């Protein structure tokens, strides 16, 4: 079961977990990662964040990442949910959830997915600090995190 969603509305992690678990009794581990809007980055006092995406391509990339993870680890389910539009500090941006028979697969796949998502899926972030706004540049630490999964 792969569940991919990109939308402006907030997501409900409990509901998504139910979706992955529905009718299954072979799942022993669910791992989730939730990314939130911080009020500081290079600038302090970030008040809001605008997420832009490439409709269509984004969903396709997320589906591919979920499929890659399913090939690499033994998974029962993957959910990738990403919000777009204007978000306030503290809001959830992204949810990665993996379900597997055993925790090791679920942990590893979850980390792989968030690392790859950050550098492969077509999203862009604009930070609002007071009345000004700027586009966030890519981070080398993110690129390094993503590269370490390359075999």
């Amino acid at each position, binding site marked *: 079961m792969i569940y*991919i969603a990109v939308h402006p509305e907030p997501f409900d992690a409990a509901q998504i977990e139910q979706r992955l678990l529905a009718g299954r009794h072979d799942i022993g581990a669910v791992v989730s990662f939730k990314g939130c809007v911080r009020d500081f980055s290079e600038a302090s006092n970030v008040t809001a964040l605008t997420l832009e995406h*490439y409709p269509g391509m984004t969903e396709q990339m997320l589906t591919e990442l979920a499929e890659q993870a399913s090939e690499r680890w033994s998974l029962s389910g993957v959910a990738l949910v990403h919000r777009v539009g204007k978000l306030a500090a503290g809001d959830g941006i992204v949810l990665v959830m993996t379900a597997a028979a055993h925790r090791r697969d679920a942990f590893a796949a979850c980390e792989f997915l968030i690392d790859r998502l950050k550098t*492969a899926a077509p*999203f862009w972030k604009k930070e609002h600090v007071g009345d000004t706004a700027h586009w966030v540049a890519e*981070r080398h630490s993110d690129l390094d995190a993503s590269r370490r999964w390359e075999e």
Partner: protein
Amino acid sequence: MPDEALSHLDERGHAHMVDVGDKIVTQRTAEASGHVRMAPHTLALLADDAMPKGDVLATARIAGIQAAKRTSELIPLCHLLALSSVKLDFALDTELPGVRIRARCRVAGRTGVEMEALTAVSVAALTLYDMCKAVDKGMVIGAVQLEHKEGGKSGDWHREPATLEAEPPAAPVAQRDSIKVLLFAALRETLDTESIEVPFTELASATLSGLKEALIARDARFALLHEQQVLSAVNQRMCKSDAPLSPGDEVGFFPPVMGG
């Protein structure tokens, strides 16, 4: 074991089947995809597991696996294969809206498994229809296609990005002879442009760089597309180097991506 299976089939009189007896046994994989488009309401019910007939996806998965195993009974000149693995994945896509199906089949054998993968997708799609038809009779099964196959004499085959699921909605026929250019994030703001149609005849060469030249000829500010930081996608697939273009292609230009 495949020898036994084949002789059995020969007795059943499939006279025109290709004789694969002399082919080498290799590890073969094929992956196919397709979708069932449905009303948003139907998809919501499916997602909430609230269909009158019960667990739709689990049933469709079993149906797809069973169908892959019985492909030779359905397709007249297809060989019976001892499949080593059949895997089906379903993705609920709110933008379609509907369910995207992917099937992957593996076998160590003498013929390819693409018919098995395509059959698995088709029967999973039909089962989805059957399970949901009580609430939505207007569902459409579509884009059943081979994604890739590996192994065998004819070698590996991958679907070219250009032919990847030509989705009909919102693509007027008049724009078939042009390239649709989309700009995102900082690039969109700097060039103050979200999307442009460039007639294919304006391209000096049928490549990404030919398109960039055509855009620069229109507006010199587009010279910044040559910067290293600018990424390109053709038909929603990331392109690292200069890629060939065909009329009707969609090209996206954007800064490095940053999600999460």
